[in-house]
């Protein structure tokens, strides 16, 4: 039976050699190599649940009056977009499950990518010949940020509407061209022209998913063609030879098992833990706001940065060269992207090491990279922390203004401290190991 199918495929596509190679393709063995797969499976579920959602969503910001099943919003003016999501959530069977699963999948997708990037970075997997793979991955990460932001902004609820206003202000804050950029993207002053929502919609369901899919395909092809990196584990694992488990029969059930586990976690969350209950927030109106509004977790670094920057617009005479949101909302993420993107090149330049690397380093084996990376991460992480300062005020009563001042200092001091501490730790660990083996 199997032979019939394979013969069919080979006669028509000439695929037998490829399939034979693929079946016995070698996967080096380490649990941390599975993190990228977790992201992949999240993406698959995002597309699947997303298609379902497109069948119900109305991408229009034109206002209507609600007369649906949810009593607290009776008679409330709202956009058709918001109303369509309300309807899906409250009146369509399984609608809320799919919607919540989709939203959880987006959050977990980004968490998985971040974990995967951390693993790639701290083991030096981004070195030649995989620097291109790494750049493609970074492009996916930043596309995913935008994709997620657009996704939850489409719903036009109170929280995400506030978030769109902030996005608009960041666009406007770009020096010189900001006003033009904002007017271009929104089709006019905020809240924008009637085509703004359809524009966001098409970006979210077509343009960006196509870009991510193309990047993903390139990423996987590059990974497969170069073969996966490996840790130095035995005399057999060398720069010239990769050792591991073949796709079939060894790796396939593990990958499938992981895929089902990812689906399980996401559907369980989608059914059991409420996410973005938009009927509680109400629809967005320009003149309304709520306390405690936050972006989805993966943009938390940005809200922290926006809150930390002291109060000034950089002016030259009467010309406002750099409005305030630029530093935290635009420069901060661009700097991070640049640092991450240029890192492989910078490392090559500084260490003079231009060779190909297939073996990974344990974080402790490269104290400079690990400590610089940890310091950089600390800098970013403090963005998340300062964005949560109001939560800390609520729980612990710590004065909000005092925390902001503390973070303004910490954000420059703590990374330096972390650098020295981590570098020392790496060296101590390596020395201790050396001692043990003697």
């Amino acid at each position, binding site marked *: 039976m199997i032979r019939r199918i394979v013969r069919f495929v080979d006669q028509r596509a000439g695929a037998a050699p490829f399939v034979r190679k693929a079946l016995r393709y070698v996967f080096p063995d380490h649990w941390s190599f*599975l993190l990228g797969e977790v992201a992949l499976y999240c993406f698959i579920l995002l597309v699947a649940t997303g298609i379902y959602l497109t069948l119900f969503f109305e991408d229009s910001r034109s206002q209507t009056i609600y007369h649906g099943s949810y009593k607290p919003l009776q008679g409330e003016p709202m956009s058709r977009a918001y109303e369509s999501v309300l309807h899906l959530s409250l009146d369509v069977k399984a609608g809320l499950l799919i919607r919540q699963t989709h939203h959880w999948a987006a959050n977990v997708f980004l968490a998985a990518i971040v974990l995967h990037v951390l693993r790639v970075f701290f083991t030096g997997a981004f070195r030649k010949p995989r620097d291109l793979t790494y750049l493609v991955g970074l492009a996916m990460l930043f596309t995913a940020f935008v994709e997620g932001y657009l996704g939850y902004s489409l719903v036009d609820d109170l929280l995400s509407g506030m978030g769109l206003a902030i996005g608009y202000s960041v666009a406007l804050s770009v020096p010189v061209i900001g006003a033009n950029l904002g007017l271009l993207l929104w089709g006019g002053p905020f809240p924008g022209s009637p085509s703004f929502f359809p524009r966001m919609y098409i970006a979210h369901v077509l343009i960006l998913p196509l870009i991510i899919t193309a990047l993903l395909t390139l990423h996987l092809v590059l990974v497969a063609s170069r073969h996966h990196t490996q840790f130095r584990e035995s005399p057999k694992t060398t720069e010239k030879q990769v050792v591991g488990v073949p796709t079939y029969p060894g790796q396939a059930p593990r990958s499938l098992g*992981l895929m089902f586990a990812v689906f399980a976690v996401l559907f369980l*969350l989608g059914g059991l833990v409420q996410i973005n209950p938009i009927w509680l927030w109400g629809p967005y109106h320009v003149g309304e706001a709520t*306390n405690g509004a*936050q972006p989805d977790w993966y943009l938390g670094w940005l809200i922290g940065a926006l809150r930390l920057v002291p109060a000034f617009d950089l002016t030259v005479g009467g010309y406002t060269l750099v409005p305030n949101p630029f530093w935290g909302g635009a420069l901060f993420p661009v700097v991070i992207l640049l640092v991450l993107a240029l890192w492989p090149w910078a490392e090559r330049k500084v260490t003079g090491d231009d060779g190909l690397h297939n073996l990974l380093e344990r974080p402790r084996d490269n104290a400079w990279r690990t400590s610089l990376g940890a310091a950089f991460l600390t800098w970013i992480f403090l963005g998340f922390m300062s964005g949560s300062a109001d939560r800390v005020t609520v729980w612990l009563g710590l004065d909000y203004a005092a925390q902001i001042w503390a973070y303004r200092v910490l954000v420059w001091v703590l990374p330096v401290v972390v650098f020295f501490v981590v570098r020392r730790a790496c060296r101590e660990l390596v020395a201790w190991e050396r001692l043990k083996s003697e």
Partner: protein
Amino acid sequence: MKRLLFILVLLFLAPARAAEPPQGVVANVAQGKSLYAANCSRCHGSRGEGLRDQGPSLKDVGALSGDFYVRTGYMPLDDPHAQPWRTRVLFSEQEIRSLVAFVATIGHGPAIPTPHWRSASVPAGKKLFTDRCAGCHQIAIAGGVLPGARIPSLNQATPRQIAEAVRIGPYLMPKFSRRAITPTQLNDIVAYVQYAKQPDDRGGWAIGHLGPWPEGMVTWLLAASALVATCIVIGRRQKRT
């Protein structure tokens, strides 16, 4: 055994008592005056005239204010510079009524309100709450922050306390008179708050009705850790052939 049962029954009834004051307890203004002298005069003055840098005057605040501040435990306040916060009330019901009755004699203030919220409009209340209250108290009454203060959640506020707070504007809260928020509007707002205490949570565990922040916590502490654990289990080395 009977006694134990009796005590157990009382314990179960006790929390229910805190919701609305029981009937049949009589206020004693004289007792209230001595309670005032012992607990309040230090900051508010011996005659309720207020003391600079200590406490405001209580003239014309009425039973409405007294009832609010005492029953929430906002007052007495140890440190006049601290933010009043909901605390355990150490006064008995009788003492509360007496104290409030005394405070009501300082000038001529409003009486304790009785909001009629059960037949009021939740949609209208939500609209009003969004415009006047959500900026501080959060759209789902979870409370929050502004520079200089914590803003309490309203989950523990009784309908009466909500009505009182709107008219007082305690601490840094704005104060809305009957003209700014009419009695009908106030009933609607109370109706909405009562709804929001146990809103439609058909999506599952509500994680505090705070939105993206607890959702991020769940993403990392539940989902990411479960999936990393799964990766570790799947990736565990096995004996090779």
